[in-house]
Every structure is written in structure tokens, then in C-alpha cells.
């Protein structure tokens, strides 16, 4: 069944994610170094802070494009189920954490943690697919 999941659209999606991940590392490391050593001029700070976010947004774009390009309806359905699980998981964690924060029980969390939780949710979605349908998906 794994061979069926490795469709041309899935391969393109994987390559896009690999390139975007490399781009992420290429933007993040200089940004961290620059902010740590305070060598970034004030007018450029917003730009340098936003740059590492762009490849991550690109990964969400790649996910959307994959769903449009995928011709195998079964494999697309697996990914849709995964993304639904990931969305529900990330939004639920954000809601609970937000109220715990509001009532003074936990500290503020940087917003990008939601995205990390989302990707963990994709893993849970894959696990749910595996347990219920026998295929984990992408």
C-alpha cells in the first residue's frame, strides 16, 4: 500500500518541503546570530524576524498545492483527514494554553509553537489513519 501513497504529487510535495526546510535553516541561523549579537539595524529587524517564517508559510502553501494536485482520491482523503486532525489538535492546545495563560498558570508561548503543535497533530492524524484505515498517509 505504501507504493500507492508515493504518487507523483506526493513526491513533488516532499521535494518542496525539503527545499523549504533548507531555506528555513538558511534564514533562521543568520537571524538568530544577528539578533544575539545585536548587529541588525532597527529598520531591518522586522524583515529579518519575518524571513524565517516565510519558508514555514511556504510549507503550508505546499500542503495546499498537494491537495489540489493529488489525483488519487484515496490518498488525498488520507491527507485531508490528517490536516483536520492537525487543525483540531493545534487549535485545541492553543485554546487551553491561552486560558491557562490568562488565569496566570503558565507563561506566554511564542506563536510559532502552534505550528510545531500542528505538525505533531499531522503525525497524530497519520496514526489515526493507520489505526482506522491501515494506511498512515504522507
Amino acid at each position: 500500500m505504501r507504493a500507492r501513497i508515493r504518487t507523483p504529487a506526493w513526491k513533488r510535495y516532499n521535494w518542496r518541503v525539503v527545499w523549504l526546510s533548507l531555506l528555513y535553516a538558511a534564514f533562521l541561523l543568520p537571524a538568530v546570530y544577528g539578533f544575539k549579537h545585536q548587529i541588525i539595524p532597527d529598520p531591518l529587524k522586522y524583515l529579518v524576524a519575518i524571513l524565517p517564517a516565510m519558508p514555514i508559510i511556504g510549507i503550508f502553501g505546499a500542503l495546499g498545492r498537494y491537495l489540489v494536485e493529488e489525483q488519487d482520491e484515496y490518498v488525498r482523503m488520507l491527507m485531508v483527514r490528517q490536516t483536520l486532525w492537525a487543525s483540531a489538535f493545534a487549535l485545541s492546545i492553543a485554546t487551553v494554553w491561552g486560558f491557562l495563560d490568562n488565569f496566570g498558570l503558565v507563561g506566554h508561548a511564542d506563536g510559532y509553537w502552534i505550528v510545531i503543535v500542528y505538525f505533531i497533530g499531522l503525525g497524530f492524524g497519520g496514526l489515526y489513519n493507520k489505526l482506522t484505515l491501515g494506511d498512515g498517509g504522507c
Partner: protein
Amino acid sequence: MAYADFTPAQRAHTKRVLWLMLAYIVVLPPLIWLRATRHIGDGVLLAMAIAAALPVLGIFASWGRYVSDERDEYHRSLTLGRIAVATNVTMGAAVVWGFLQAFGVMPLIETYWVPFVWVVVQGLYGCIEVFSRKGAQS
């Protein structure tokens, strides 16, 4: 689309969401008042924070149940499209804000703003869909 045109799954989902929003409106103000005016132990605060989050989690669960219950493939695909757009926009906003926070150029905010953005984007995209369909018909 008028309520009379709703599918059975849409009607059930709308009722569930309205009840959950009512529960949210009833539960939240006393919790905020208690937090502001009384000295409360951490255990009770934890229960209060989770109680405030539960109706919102219920709304996400209701979306999941709607997608599962909906028999009209067209409506289901519209909903899945809206969810995908809302999730991508929300995650994009979260990751940009997250990096701006991490590099100290924007303030930290409570994470429950993330599901708030998700709900707003989903509503806005739904409106855009309705107006674009009306524009195409006329």
C-alpha cells in the same frame, strides 16, 4: 443560504455551536470575575481555565462531527476548503507573529487568539465564497 436550505448535518452543527457559544457566554464572565476579585488556589484556577476552554473545544469537535456527518459531497468539499484556507492563514499568522515575538520586536499574546483568528478567517472566506458565487450567477 437560508436556514431552511441547510442540510440536516448543517442544522445539527449550527444548533451544537449555538448551544456551545451560549455555554461559553454563561461560563466565562463568572470565571473572569472570580479571578479578578478572589484569591484562588492553583488547582481551582486550573479547573477554571479548562472550564473556559471546554466550550471552544466543543466547537472544534462539532466541526469534526459535521464533516463526518455531512452526506452532501458539495457542501462537505466547501467546508473542507474553508477549513484548509483558515488553517493555512492562521498558521501563517502564528508563525510570523511567533518569530516577531522570539526576536523581541512584538509583544507576547495569549494563544487563544490563534483559534479566534481561525474562526474569523473561516467566516470571512465563507463570505467571499458567497459573494463570488452571487457575482458569477448575476
